[in-house]
């Protein structure tokens, strides 16, 4: 995918661009708000990574401007401000996700991949299918190999989120935010326990493992672990 990085710190920007290229994506860098705005207008990108505090034009006003012009490219806001209300401001300005600095690259990559996917039409599919695992979003039923699997409501939402991002890494904080709406780091492995419970229901009695742990990053549902 094509990523536009609008970030004034050259080291961060070039590190991000390098890491994205290594992950098989292409990245371009704009070092201030005005250049970033011009770049976003002139070419099509799949996703934008926008630092909140930029020279010439701050990140939030840049997003507001782009959204007003009808640009729908998903945007992830990067910021050193990580409190609850800073986040709300970022999302209100038209950002699609918010990540506080400092962050792990794996977290950023997982989030922008989720953003790109969310922008695609698959998002609104009525059924998510991974191999023989099927999640029906209308009836809220889950089947594997034709066998119904009974899930608790929260387990269902966890699986739904994982399957929506099938084939992509989902981090623990992404799960906390999207499944529990918790915007803080609980510091213990609460999510891991929920995942292992879910795993025991959807994977335990089957030959092929679908729910994988990605070391140092998070989880992924799909045919193979990377």
């Amino acid at each position, binding site marked *: 995918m094509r990523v536009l990085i609008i970030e004034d710190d050259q080291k961060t920007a070039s590190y991000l661009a390098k890491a994205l290229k290594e992950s098989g994506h292409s990245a371009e860098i704009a070092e201030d708000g005005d250049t970033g705005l011009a770049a976003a207008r002139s070419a099509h990108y799949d996703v934008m990574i926008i630092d909140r505090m930029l020279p010439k034009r701050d990140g939030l006003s840049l997003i507001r401007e782009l959204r007003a012009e009808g640009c729908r490219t998903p945007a992830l806001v990067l910021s050193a401000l*990580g*409190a*609850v*209300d800073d986040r*709300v401001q970022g999302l209100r300005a038209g950002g699609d996700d918010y990540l*506080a600095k*400092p962050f*792990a690259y794996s977290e950023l990559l997982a989030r922008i991949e989720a953003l790109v996917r969310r922008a695609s039409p698959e998002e609104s599919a009525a059924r998510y299918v991974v191999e023989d695992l099927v999640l029906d979003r209308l009836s809220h039923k889950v089947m594997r190999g034709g066998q119904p699997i009974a899930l608790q409501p*929260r387990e269902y939402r966890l699986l739904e989120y994982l399957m929506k991002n099938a084939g992509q890494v989902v981090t623990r904080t992404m799960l906390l935010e999207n499944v*529990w709406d*918790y*915007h*803080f*780091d*609980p*510091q*213990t*492995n*609460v999510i891991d*326990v*929920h995942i292992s*419970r879910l795993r025991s229901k959807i994977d335990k009695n089957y030959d092929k493992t679908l729910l994988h742990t990605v070391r*140092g990053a998070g989880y992924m549902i799909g045919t193979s672990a990377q």
Partner: protein
Amino acid sequence: MRNKLVKTSAFRLSVVYVLVFGLTILGSVVYIHWQAQSFISRNIDDAIDAELKGLAEQYRQGGLGSLTRTVAERSLTPGNSLYLVTDASGRYEAGNLRAVTPELWNVIGRVQFAYRRPSPTGDEMRLAIANVFRLEGGYRLIVGKDIQERREFEALLRHVALWSLLAVAIAGVGGGLMLGRRLLARIDAVTQASDAIVSGGLGGRIPLTGSGDELDRLAAHLNALFDRIEALMTGLREVSDNIAHDLKTPLNRLRNRAEAALRQEQGEAAYREALQDTIEEADGLIRTFDALLNIARLEAGAHSTSFETFNLGDVVREAVELYEPLAEEHGLTMRIDDFGPLPMCGEPRLIAQAVANLIDNAIKYASGEQAGGSGAGLTIAAAESGPVIELSIADRGPGIAEEDRDRVLKRFVRLETSRSQAGSGLGLSLVAAVARLHGGTLKLEDNRPGLKVVMTLPRGETERWQERLAAE
């Protein structure tokens, strides 16, 4: 000092007061004087007219002889009436006036004049008013009244007015000065005390006189202000001390580890491990930093603007649901008391974080070896009690010794026993900060055995809750 005194509002007020009061007194004295004068003049005129009329009657009926007789008779009665009857040449015929002065002789009608009156201390000059009447044959009848007393009364009135005005002015200005000086002295005391407090590290407080007047109230307000500033300063100092300690130590560890890895040639696996450790150490640092910043922001009250009405019951249930599998994995059962909707006004995300932190703590510390046995578990209860909601999380772990309970809640104070535990160790401080932000409290109690954490949160303004319930 003098200049300052004159500038005080108390002095200015008393000057204005003296002016207004003095003018009022002056006005009333002038009015009384004028009224009294015209009243007395009228009386004298009437008396003279009445006597004249009576004597004229005598003259008409009995002629000059009868008149002189009556005049001589009346002259004998003491009083302030004056009489004189003269012939055409001004020679004395009868009356108590001995001589005709030229001003009396040349005038017909009303006249004011001075006359000599014998008294025990010798003759004295007195003022009088008279009516001069010419009779047939050049005779004159003079009827008058002594007005010396009236004059003296008027002079007395003027004196009284002058002196009272003077007294009012002196008392007013003097009182104003005294009041101003008293006020100034007290304000100076307050100013000096606050100067001393500001320059002396915010330690002291302004002494109160105990009178409860407005200056005392002002001093009490200033003291409250100093308390708040001192608390904020102490907080800031604690934050910086803790940043120094909690961030420098792991930073140093991180640096040492990187240095050690660089020092000798190693295989890729060893480097990889060293880098992995570095990342973990950095993550720990970030968490500590976030926690410190969050607490600082909470202490500054930065979130109180985003308060909303929400159901605390739901927040607690969700947190319990999140931690339930983890507790189970640690061999703990979580028991949640049945409670209905608990509406409160606050920041739900912060409350959720606080509740999650408390449960997290309880699981972390209660799942040790001491916590075995049938009673092992967490009990979470919440209930409304008056204007507050009491939320308690009780465990069966080792608990916290009584003497440490207050200390552990103080900002950034950590028990040595918990320093070795995973996490930033700031969880409880954060919970206490969240409780304080909502105007609530956090208390640690003995659960015999174990620890019972009680968070008391005021419900706040939740009147819109009913509307919301109805809308849903």
